[in-house]
């Protein structure tokens, strides 16, 4: 009896504890979600409602004016096209180089693999710095070239570590030995065994590089000079952060209307720039988490 009584008492305390935990987590979810909903709602509200601060949670005077204006703006369209190109090309280059580096380093019989691994991880701890790197890119003639966004940061060490530990743990050593016995070359083995078996890790690499490339602005800021090569993120910076909204589409409007529309455009622009990533995110979150964990096991 006595033990039963204490157990009930304890579980009451535990239940209270659990209620507090749930309450905090609900507050956290609201705190994360509210700004996101607010932005989406604003982007489909009328320009006057947005600039009068009448939007609180749901759209006010539903209107697609922001998006209509946005998709007529040549600057935004060029930026969008450029970002799609940089993401596709950059991801392809990065994933190829990462696999080409990580797979050989996962082979235990490759002489010098530990030394090479150290050489590569050291670049995580120490770097020449901004200016010395800039001078290399400049010496290669990549300033104001699209290559500057695709090559100088193509390989991330962390991705190499993740891919390497995947290869180490999921390509069985016996398989390598057996195929070597049958006279299968390393290249052929890589092409017809390793790549097909590594689809999960290649998916993770593609996703991480693609998101990184889509979201990047720093390399474009320092290496690009011509506006028609700018990725979307730089256009965003110029319109929202530096407030250069004087685009041609809006010239014909009245001053007040133009100001209201400029305010609305910022919300639409944020949605348009973030949507591609956030739409695929719920489907790929699992892969992201797995990728992080594979890396941390042996990282």
């Amino acid at each position, binding site marked *: 009896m006595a033990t039963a009584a*204490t157990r009930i008492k304890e579980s009451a*305390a535990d239940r209270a*504890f659990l209620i507090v*935990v*749930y309450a905090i*987590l609900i507050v*956290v*979810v609201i705190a*994360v979600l509210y700004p*996101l909903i*607010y*932005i989406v709602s604003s982007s489909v509200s009328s320009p006057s409602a947005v*600039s009068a601060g009448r939007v609180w949670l749901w759209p006010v005077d539903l209107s697609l004016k922001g998006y209509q204006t946005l998709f007529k703006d040549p600057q935004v369209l060029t930026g969008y096209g450029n970002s799609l190109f940089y993401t596709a090309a950059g991801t392809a280059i990065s994933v190829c*180089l990462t696999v*080409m*580096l990580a797979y*050989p380093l996962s*082979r235990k*019989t490759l*002489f010098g693999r530990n030394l*090479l691994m150290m050489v*590569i991880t050291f*670049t995580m701890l*120490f*770097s*020449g*710095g*901004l*200016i*010395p790197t800039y*001078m*290399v*890119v400049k010496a290669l003639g990549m300033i104001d070239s699209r290559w500057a966004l695709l*090559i100088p*940061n*193509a*390989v991330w060490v962390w991705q190499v570590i993740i891919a390497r530990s995947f290869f180490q743990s999921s390509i069985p050593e016996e398989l390598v030995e057996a195929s070597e016995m049958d006279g299968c070359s*390393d*290249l052929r083995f890589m092409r017809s065994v390793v790549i097909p078996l590594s689809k999960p890790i290649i998916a993770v690499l593609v996703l991480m590089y693609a*998101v990184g490339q889509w*979201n990047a*602005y*720093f390399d474009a800021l*320092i290496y690009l000079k011509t506006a028609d090569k700018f990725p979307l*993120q730089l256009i*965003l*910076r110029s319109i*929202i*952060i530096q407030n250069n909204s004087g685009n041609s589409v809006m010239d014909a409007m009245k001053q007040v209307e133009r100001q209201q529309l400029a305010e609305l455009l*910022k*919300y639409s622009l*944020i949605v348009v720039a*973030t949507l591609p*990533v*956030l739409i695929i*995110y719920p489907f790929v*979150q699992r892969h992201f*988490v797995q990728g*992080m*964990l594979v890396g941390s096991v042996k990282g």
Partner: protein
Amino acid sequence: MEAAGKRPEARKSFARHWQLYLVIAPPLLFFLIFKYYPMLNAVLAFKDYYVTKGIWGSPWIGFKNFEMFFENPIFWTLVKNTLLISFYLLLAGFPIPILLALMLNEVRNQRFKRLVQLVTFAPYFISTVVMVSILMLFLAPRLGFVNVFLNHLGMSSVNFLGNPGLFSSIFVWSDIWQTAGYSAVIYLAALSAVDPTLYEAAKVDGASRFQKIWNVDLPGILPTITIILILNVGSVMAIGFEKIYLLQNNLNISSSEIIATYVYRIGLLNANYSFATAVGLFNSVINLVLLFSVNALARRFSNSSIW
């Protein structure tokens, strides 16, 4: 003796894996050109750079650039701002993902747990430019959501981004908003690896939920916590350029100028290459020393270290 023994091994490996060495050559070349060659270029820090003479032809000036930097009054401002923002971020940003993971670990309803994870992880995918854009829109002095809200409550507007005193808080708390869910993942994984028999034992002993967290969960993930802490402390000087640069304006510059943004301003905008290289090198070296010391300390006082 050992080297002599290794040479045939190397030759054998090369004969057997020559194709793999061919495959690995291009990415290795990438590291040599874009990561190691810049390290050589860092000698610029000890030179007086003339464009016409190139890096190697420019005259040596020893530590003059460093002396100039240390004597410049901005030196202490930069160090102070860099350290203040980093330690603020460390103190506030380090425990929150741990708490989040511990709380999530208590949740038995799998759908709720997945929902919380899905939502808190999402802001990680927002780009720096969009994050700063959101901050600027929300904190704008006139039309910003936060000020409209304050006005409704009868309070006057605050120029958040124009106030140097508020800069570090804006930076740190928006960073936590963006990354806490992401950082919690690693602790959740560590929690799922805690030995289940320990929970059985705790249950038998009649431990409450809180006692279980304190005596089983926390010790279970302590090695992970230590490693993440080493990495975080080791990178306090390497605080990101990207977000701070975008948040800077003329009004908050006194507390928002950090070493990384100063290097960009002096080096690329004012084309003072060798001085900026020296400042950057100073930062990298301090960072490396810090990482090694923290790691050595951790190795001495606990069993976890990153190498």
